């Protein structure tokens, strides 16, 4: 056991303004249209509802664009187009489908900067993340699945894969473009046609993406995008032509969809909430663990379903970890999402900000100890300072409910068994992290933890070849890898 290092709590480092970084805003144009129609049958089509709603930028609360509100008639038109396109698309050779996926991937790479800026303006995430993560990983998913399109026979040796038909896909607001890629790339590779609905607060990059589809020459009707809020989503879920519903979002809505589809022959995959345990053992490389904890919870303002929102730290190193975490928080830069030096951007919407504020209040009133660095938040826009809670008990709301914000609840444990028990003490099971210098412990923990993905000595790593999905109320079905591919095909 490592000796407990004496730490003089009075001694501090000064993270001041002796050398301040000047603002470094990303200035590339985002080319966002003032108004977006629906994308049905390869054409931008005005909604039959004749209604549009405003999309605002969470970074400064300014209007970004107007987004069409699709009603039932519009959703029907989208499904009609997808159904009409299905016979030809599903019978096209795998190489032919792969050709379009490769084109989409390359066109997305060509316009990566523009899409990154649009994603940041519309969703509030820091430009560093949309530039270095969202857009490149989205392109990687298209490349990966383009490769599968003509190799489906190898995904289930001795059997044949057939597409499902028209799939309805509903995606969340935390990674708008990336979730779109996760959903449509495997579906198209397998020969399905699609009706997709982006989240109402973040539709801009999905609609910009339609111009890539046009440039790629994707046959009309193969991918249709309808925008709107919950009612539009309900219309998709209820639509008789949907062979499958794929949903990523909250557990509440996921349960609603599952109830709705019960008794039908529609397939369903759900990727829902999480309350991941990030487990730090006393022999862990502490500084890298601290960095991983920060990456795990503050990546994308904590709007990550697999965020490491519960830190379980072994008692013997708890003080040191908390001290170093607090120190690390003091030089996280919160502010303008378009500034290239921003680490934590804007909360996606006022509604989400209010939810975070409410849960943080409950944490304080239930007796947990709150730690926030002194940081100046912009006056306009939705911002929340990175927040730590220590002395958290398993019964606190902040330890049970998904906050989906930059808020970390810190609990302690004494033995590996206790860590596993506490990690499992949640309705969720999407992801977990293990930090230790001991390889055998990594293997043991990752075998025992009921979580779809377990990261060891790292956090929030994604690869198109690696399946992602949950246990328990975090949903079912996988995205990425061969497993994710098979969720969009039937084996005949």
């Amino acid at each position, binding site marked *: 056991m490592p000796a407990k290092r004496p730490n*003089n709590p009075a001694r501090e480092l000064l993270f001041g303004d002796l050398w301040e970084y000047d603002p470094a805003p990303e200035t590339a144009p985002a080319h966002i249209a003032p108004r977006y129609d629906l994308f049905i049958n390869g054409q931008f089509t005005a909604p039959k509802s004749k209604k549009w709603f405003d999309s605002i930028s969470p970074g400064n609360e300014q209007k970004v664009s107007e987004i069409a509100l699709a009603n039932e008639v519009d959703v029907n038109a989208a499904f009609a187009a997808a159904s009409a396109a299905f016979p030809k698309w599903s019978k096209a050779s795998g190489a032919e489908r792969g050709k379009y996926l490769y084109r989409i991937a390359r066109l997305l790479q060509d316009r990566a900067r523009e899409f990154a800026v649009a994603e940041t303006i519309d969703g509030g995430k820091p430009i560093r993340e949309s530039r270095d993560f969202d857009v490149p990983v989205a392109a990687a998913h298209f490349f990966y699945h383009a490769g599968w399109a003509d190799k489906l026979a190898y995904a289930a040796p001795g059997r044949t894969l057939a597409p499902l038909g028209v799939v309805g896909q509903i995606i969340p607001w935390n990674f708008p473009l990336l979730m779109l890629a996760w959903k449509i790339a495997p579906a198209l590779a397998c020969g399905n046609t699609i009706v997709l609905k982006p989240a109402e607060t973040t539709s801009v990059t999905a609609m910009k993406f339609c111009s890539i589809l046009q440039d790629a020459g994707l046959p009309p009707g193969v991918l249709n995008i309808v925008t709107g809020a919950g009612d539009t989503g309900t219309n998709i879920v209820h639509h008789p032509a949907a062979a499958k519903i794929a949903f990523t979002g909250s557990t509440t809505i996921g349960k609603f969809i599952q109830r709705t589809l019960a008794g039908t022959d529609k397939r369903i995959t759900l990727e829902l909430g999480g309350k991941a345990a990030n487990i730090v053992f006393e022999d862990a490389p502490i500084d890298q663990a601290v960095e991983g904890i920060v990456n795990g919870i503050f990546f994308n303002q904590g709007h990550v379903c697999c965020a490491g929102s519960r830190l379980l730290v072994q008692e013997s190193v708890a003080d040191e970890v908390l001290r170093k975490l607090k120190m690390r928080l003091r030089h996280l830069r919160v502010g303008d999402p378009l500034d290239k030096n921003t680490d934590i951007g804007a909360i996606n919407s006022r509604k989400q900000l209010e939810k975070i504020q409410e849960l943080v209040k409950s944490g304080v009133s239930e007796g947990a100890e709150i730690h926030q660095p002194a940081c100046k938040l912009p006056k306009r826009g939705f911002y929340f300072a990175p927040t730590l809670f220590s002395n958290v008990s398993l019964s606190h709301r902040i330890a049970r409910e998904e906050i989906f914000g930059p808020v970390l609840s810190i609990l302690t444990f004494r033995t590996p068994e206790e860590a596993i028990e506490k990690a499992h003490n949640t309705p969720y099971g999407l992801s977990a992290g293990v930090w230790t210098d001991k390889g055998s412990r990594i293997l043991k923990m990752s075998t025992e933890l009921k979580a779809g993905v377990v990261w060891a000595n*790292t956090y929030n790593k994604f690869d198109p070849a690696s399946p992602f999905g949950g246990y328990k109320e975090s949903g079912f079905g996988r995205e990425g890898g061969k497993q994710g591919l098979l969720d969009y095909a039937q084996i005949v």
Partner: protein
Amino acid sequence: MARSNPISLRSLISEIGPVDQVGIEERVAKYITRSIKKASKVQALKLAVSMVDLTTLEGKDTPGKVASLCLKALHPHDDPSIPSTAAVCVYPRLVKHAKKLLRGSSVKIASVATAFPSGQAPLATRLSEVRAAVSDGADEIDMVISRGAFLAGELALVQDEIAAVRDACGKTTLKAILETSELETYDNIRAASFLAMRVLRPGDFIKTSTGKTSSNATLGNNQVMLEAIRDFYLETGTEIAMKPAGGIRTAKQAIQFLIAVKETLGDAWLNNAHYRFGASALLNDLVRQLVKEKTGAYQAPYTFSEASGSY
């Protein structure tokens, strides 16, 4: 020299904690994404100039070469707003020549002693080299640790030798070169940093490399050493300084290293008593970028004394 009790690498690492390679390299990759513009860039460039240990360590060094190096260190450019460098760094034989030009100035004279770069000479020889450099007027001694002894597990010997050199230095500042590329692993670099820091005095340095091996200062080993310095400071209150050396040739790189300092150790280390760059070509690039910031255009290469050999 009195021998201390043996120190095992295993117990030392268990005490100070291990380093994860993937994690540390991920951390420093974030420094590279920082965008430093306008006034903050100019400030960083000037700060970096003031931190340079302008170095010449060649077999063909002469008193004349050292003289022009000293003049360059005093006046890196005709723009008076550009500061002098922190020091010049030369072989012991040339200290007295540098002293003639630098006496009374702010530019210190550093000298690599202790059978630089291998350190493979008897301790008595190494110590007498240190004493000679000090008596010739060196303000700072850059020593090499015994990597062979470290890798053979003789950690106490390594530490005792550092302590012996420290004593031979008297009031002269000591910089302990770990030669990170020969220690190879981040765990070793962290362990060697603690070994050295525990016998160094406040204001003494730990330094990455000699510049004489294939791989020198990197953001990764710089970060491991900065974090060691931070942990040691929080534990003991002793402020140890840091010097990455070798391989930092461009202003852009230097700014990335400064970002690491700012975000790891904070404002107190952003000065040349706490942080140095061991470099030769770097100075010209810093000056080139400063002139570019001022005039808006890059000047012809011959505006600056390009090759380090022509200082």
